[in-house]
């Protein structure tokens, strides 16, 4: 299957996908509730879209294409309220968070759909420990070259999104000391990491994708688990490093931050991206996963050491004008607050210290998702 042409879409439009946890209210463990939940949701029109995920204890929602923060947020609120109401009808808890704090991967059931079964057969335990929950943000691009330019220009800002969304400190019942442990599960896959440094769609198609396809290692874009990947059939780039936040407000804010950043980068005032930017990429990404906002990153051009929190605040300020034009100022203010009050990972650790149990952590996440 050849790579499909890059479909043109309106620049700077955005769409959000959220993978959500389905939790038993009796013991707070993940529970295979997606078939029942999807059945109930089918009865009424759903705001946006809802689909099953690889295990039955996960569902994915996605929004329509939006241009403004308030519209995106309104739809996410509506989606959340619909989900919470359905969950209440079925005695199923729904929440965000990049990992479930104590689920055992051996207990997971694979949703019966041929592609999921294939993935499970190929990756073995990796498929089940892939019971992790991420937020994906799509940004529309005018053409494939812009998409690849943005993809590489954004690489320097990837740690921002990891630290601001981090909500997976607990895995298999223990504190990992990471703020986003979820990404460690992603990195285990052979096709994960960064995209190759190619700046034109033509070159991407002919000198990278077709070669990779020829090796037999991949069949389609779906087989790449990159941090940012182009999505030609939508005409977007997709940022995939975010943990699903505990609230839809934060999910909307992250999307609008990305939108503003893309608007800024498309002005091309920054030094253009280069292959050497990736020398510090993995190190910076590790810092963001491990220490969150308290991490220290290295600037890819100047090699200067920067506090991640400071770098985020500086960038947010620089985005002010762009966000104002796009109607996303409230979103940036929300993120400024996050740098002061701490990320979702911090919130979850506080809950653990307060309640003394990982079940208490899940309970707090359930309440937070409802917005109560």
């Amino acid at each position, binding site marked *: 299957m050849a790579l499909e042409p890059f479909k043109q879409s309106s620049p700077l439009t955005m769409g959000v996908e959220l993978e959500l946890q389905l939790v038993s209210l009796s013991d707070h463990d993940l529970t295979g509730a997606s078939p029942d939940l999807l059945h109930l949701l089918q009865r009424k029109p759903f705001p946006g879209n809802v689909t099953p995920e690889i295990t039955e204890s996960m569902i994915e929602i996605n929004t329509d294409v939006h241009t403004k923060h308030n519209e995106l947020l309104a739809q996410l609120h509506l989606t959340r309220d619909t989900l919470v109401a359905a969950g209440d009808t079925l005695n199923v808890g729904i929440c965000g968070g990049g990992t479930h704090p104590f689920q055992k991967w051996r207990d997971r059931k694979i949703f*019966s759909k041929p592609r999921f079964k294939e993935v499970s057969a190929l990756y073995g335990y990796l498929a089940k420990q892939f019971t992790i929950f991420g937020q994906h943000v799509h940004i529309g691009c005018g053409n494939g070259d812009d998409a690849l330019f943005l993809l590489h220009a954004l690489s320097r800002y990837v740690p921002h999104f990891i630290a601001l969304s981090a909500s997976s400190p607990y895995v298999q019942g223990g504190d990992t000391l990471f703020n986003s442990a979820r990404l460690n599960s992603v990195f285990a896959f052979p096709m994960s990491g960064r995209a190759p440094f190619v700046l034109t769609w033509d070159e991407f198609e002919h000198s990278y994708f077709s070669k990779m396809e020829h090796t037999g290692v991949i069949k389609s874009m779906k087989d790449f688990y990159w941090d940012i990947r182009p999505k030609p059939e939508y005409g977007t780039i997709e940022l995939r490093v975010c943990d699903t936040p505990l609230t839809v407000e934060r999910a909307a804010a992250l999307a609008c931050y990305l939108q503003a950043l893309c608007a800024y980068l498309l002005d091309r005032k920054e030094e253009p991206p280069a292959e050497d930017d990736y020398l510090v990429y993995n190190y910076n990404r590790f810092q963001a996963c491990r220490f969150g906002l308290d991490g220290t990153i290295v600037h890819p051009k100047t090699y200067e050491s920067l506090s991640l929190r400071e770098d985020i605040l500086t960038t947010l300020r620089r985005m002010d004008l762009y966000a104002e034009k796009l109607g996303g100022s409230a979103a940036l203010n929300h993120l400024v607050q996050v740098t002061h009050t701490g990320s979702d990972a911090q919130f979850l650790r506080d809950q653990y210290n307060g309640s*003394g149990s990982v079940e208490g952590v899940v309970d707090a996440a359930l309440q937070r998702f409802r917005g109560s």
Partner: protein
Amino acid sequence: MQPDIFIISEELAWPLAVLLAWLAGEFAHRWTGVPRISVYGLVGFLAAQAFPDLFTTDGASSVTMLANVAFGLILFEFGYRVNLHWLRVNPWIALSGLFESAVTFGVVYAIAHWQGMQPLTALLLASLAMSTSPAGVLRVINEERSSGQVTERVLHIVAMNCVLAVFVFKVVVGFWVFQTSGSFTQAVSHSLIELCASAVLGALFGMLVPAVLRNLGTLARDGTVAFALVVVLLVAITHAADLSPVLATLTFGLMARHRRVSFTRTQRNFGAIGEVLTVLLFVFAVSTLDWDRVLAGAMLGLVLIVARFVVKVAAVAVFSHVGGITWRKGALIGVAMSPMSVFVVLVLEQTKSMGIVLVDELAALAAMTLFMEVIGPIITQRALVWARETAKEED
């Protein structure tokens, strides 16, 4: 002449029967996938028929006591999985529970009465037929590691029909006491006071234990041992004071859940000791039955089983669409509610001391109990498999 070594003494009979049942259960489960508890029941019944003298029990024996503790642990876990908030948010579940219990009661009473049974006996039989065995259902659910709407709703509806069954049963007993003794106070103390006291006792412990655990802090993050010990205590108290252990342990679990200190998955069934007691419970439950009576009551028993089954399936399925699930899953909930034995046997054992020996009088009940102890769990298991809620690795 037989050497002494082949003569199995009474002290050895129970441990050997339990061991044999466990072994048979493991083999049968591995080879055919039938629920282990079905096999425990079958072995218990066969052992008791082969050596009737060795397996006699009265209400005060230690085996009865252990069986009650085993049942108490299961009921605690059962109560712990019931979410009262859900019953408020989705009233259709409670409604279907009430409806199926009421219709089952009516239909079983009508059939029994039409068969010429005494009204009072028919009422007692009908009240017991309302209930589903919580032990059978919970054991199968845990064995299959099932999750989904059939699983959740079966747990909630069964909790309801058990409480209703105990309630109606006690009221009928109170009525019976009033008729035979003529003393109104004695009748009330045998029914309402007993019920209230049991529930209050359970609720009280359900508030106390989590509070104590919370004060112990991280030391007591795992409440399993504390809960198990309190269940043992509750069973002993209810036994001594002639209260209902069923109601007390169920309310204990219910209250402990709503004042929660979390209970993690590894402690399902209360671990290995819980397993041991379960084998004993299921062996015990059928050892009280007698083959001649089972045969005598087989016809009526079968008619009642079929009627009960049809009524439960239809009555629950009616509410499935409006309650948010498919018709198919609604019907499967009713199917899964087939088991009924253990609950019946223990309720009856308790009333024996009052001179009501219903199993002995009621051949039909003996047949129903035996049949549903062995076949019931298999039906529940099938229902969960058909609902695709079991955790079997798919190929």
